[in-house]
């Protein structure tokens, strides 16, 4: 079926015979190249990748505009050029947070008949209850979704990797204690655990993000542990041990790289989950606080204006949907590429 794959396996199989560190990386690289080629061949996975890439660029630019410029504005050097928060948005169009002077108007999107009148081309998707442009706020909402989703996943990934690797590699009572702990954390439903975390530390996007990250540690820890346990018994790890390589080096150089593929798949899918959870937290009022634009918070506000502008409730949800679908498509494609047996 897949010629390239069987070849790379032959290569890997032979490199195990005479243990050599460089051989390992060759094997890993062949695997990666193969995986990438497979993903590129899969149109859904590729589409997911493109959407993620676009969203990431948007998130990056808006982050610079919001966070970096606000930071730089403290310094005279930059301030004299007019650098301030949302400098870019203001220069091109308008600030996503500033409310227009006078009575705020809730406008529906262009072309949507409504008792509240028609949107204008200056505001293609209409304006919200405070007269801010919805399209602009949606664009700036990408930042929170992607950034917080990825960071939360990173926290879970790193935490899970450390705990899983230590637990799986050492076994014994370390393993018992850590896995019991993971199991207990796992028994508290995800969102409830995050809510308890927020209840303890206070409501802010930072704690929400850390909470989501911490709550996802058990998932990653279990996955990595199971991989480590199976890799631990492999010949090259045995050989490295016999050759007197230190435990830490074995974990870092052999065990982790060889466990990475399924973890990457899990991480990609987890970003999607994290985005939904964070949006949910913002919807409940525990995530991002106004006026910073975020999709979840926009949905929360829109509930009060369903009669006046029903579309206000639609757009942010669509944004979440498209972003999360992209992560799921990419993650599924990655999994299929890494495990051709499941190719369906």
């Amino acid at each position: 079926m897949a010629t390239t794959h069987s070849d790379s396996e032959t290569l890997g199989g032979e490199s195990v015979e005479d243990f050599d560190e460089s051989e390992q990386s060759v094997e890993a690289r062949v695997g990666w190249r193969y995986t990438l080629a497979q993903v590129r061949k899969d149109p859904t996975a590729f589409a997911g990748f493109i959407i993620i890439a676009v969203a990431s660029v948007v998130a990056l630019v808006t982050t610079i505009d919001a966070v970096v410029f606000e930071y730089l504005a403290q310094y005279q050097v930059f301030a004299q050029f007019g650098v301030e928060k949302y400098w870019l948005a203001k220069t091109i169009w308008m600030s996503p947070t500033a409310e227009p002077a006078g009575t705020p108007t809730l406008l529906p999107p262009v072309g949507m008949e409504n008792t509240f009148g028609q949107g204008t081309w200056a505001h293609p998707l209409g304006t919200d209850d405070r007269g801010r442009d919805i399209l602009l706020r949606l664009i700036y909402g990408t930042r929170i979704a992607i950034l917080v989703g990825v960071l939360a996943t990173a926290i879970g990934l790193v935490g899970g990797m450390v705990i899983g690797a230590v637990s799986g590699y050492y076994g014994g009572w370390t393993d018992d204690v850590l896995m019991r702990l993971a199991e207990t954390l796992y028994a508290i439903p995800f969102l409830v655990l995050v809510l308890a975390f927020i209840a303890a530390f206070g409501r802010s996007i930072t704690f929400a993000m850390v909470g989501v990250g911490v709550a996802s540690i058990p998932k990653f820890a279990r996955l990595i542990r199971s991989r480590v346990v199976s890799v631990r018994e492999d010949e090259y790890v045995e050989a490295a041990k016999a050759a007197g390589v230190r435990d830490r080096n074995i974990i870092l150089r052999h065990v982790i790289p060889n466990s990475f593929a399924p973890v990457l798949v899990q991480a990609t899918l987890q970003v999607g989950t994290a985005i939904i959870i964070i949006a949910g937290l913002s919807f409940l009022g525990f995530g991002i606080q106004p006026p910073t634009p975020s999709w979840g918070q926009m949905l929360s506000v829109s509930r009060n204006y369903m009669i006046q502008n029903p579309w206000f409730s639609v757009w942010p949800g669509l944004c979440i949907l498209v972003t999360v679908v992209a992560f799921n498509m990419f993650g599924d494609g990655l999994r299929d590429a890494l495990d051709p047996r499941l190719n369906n």
Partner: protein
Amino acid sequence: MSAPLLRVDDLQVQFFTEDGVVRAVDGISFDVREGELVGLVGESGAGKSVAVSAIMRLVESPGRIVGGHIEFKGETLIEVERGDDGESYRTDATIPDGELRERIRGREIAIIFQDPMESLNPVFTVGGQLREFIELNRDLSEEDAREEAVRMLREVGIPEAAARYDDYPHQFSGGMRQRVLIAMALACEPALIIADEPTTALDVTVEAQILDLVDELQERYDTSFVWVTHDMGVVAEICDRVNVMYLGEIVEQAPVDDLFYDTQHPYTEALLDSVPRPDETVEELNPIKGVMPEAINPPAGCRFHTRCPDAREACKTTNPDCRDVTDGVTEHRAACIKHDAFETTYEGSPPLETGSGGGFDVSLSGGETDD
């Protein structure tokens, strides 16, 4: 000589994969007579399993039978012809799906798969599975089928058969499970049993027990067998006649003694050299050089020439069919142009350097020729 029980003629099975068409079985012909145990040998990947699964039209997507004719007891199990548009289609002589399922599968031809661990459904009792197939294929009532199932379990040497009827597959060892599968095949009283490497997954002592059991039961029930294996030792022990397969083609067919003592194809010879034989003492075993090329892109000419010790220039261009090479003295056919039956330039053509490059090279060159 009476008409054979099963006749396979020019069977072709192809797999339509993303990477191209794999000609897994490429025009093989063989037959099985009543009461006979016919072997089908070759390395893994030679297309043996695909070939036998084609007999009951069990080839799974993306595989398809694209040519050939299989006849069983005078009925056409499948006949595929190529139409004017190049598309292959089943002829009207082919018996319909429903009939094949009701009259042939299980009832006339039964199958035993390679892995006894995977062949039994883990969530149903062993006896229940046996009973279901007996009920279905022998028109017995539930109680009679149950009785028959217990009897067959006893017949294949399962101790306390009645008590173990209600056990689940995971409570049986591998050898015991294979006995169950043999019981299953025999219980349906078929005329032919296809055994697809049934002892490969077992350890050697268990294998020997199973082979003895099959030998004994075959005599008692007078069932014909097609026995797929890669093990020449097994062939020597139980087969009457043997077909040797290489890369989707049959390269030699002969009665078992002729195959061992009057080998006519270099591949068969290489296979025999690579396993220990009780009748010959050798200094060291001589494994076949290289690995079999991928069937997706077989070498031009004789498919074995990339690994053949006797290969010559002429072998690169001629792909020989399987011909009688002993002037009709015995039924011994081989597909190698070194024999006089093939009028080629073999004698005059220069020898080829082969097999020296190691496994990986050969498989690469196999994949890269005539793109």
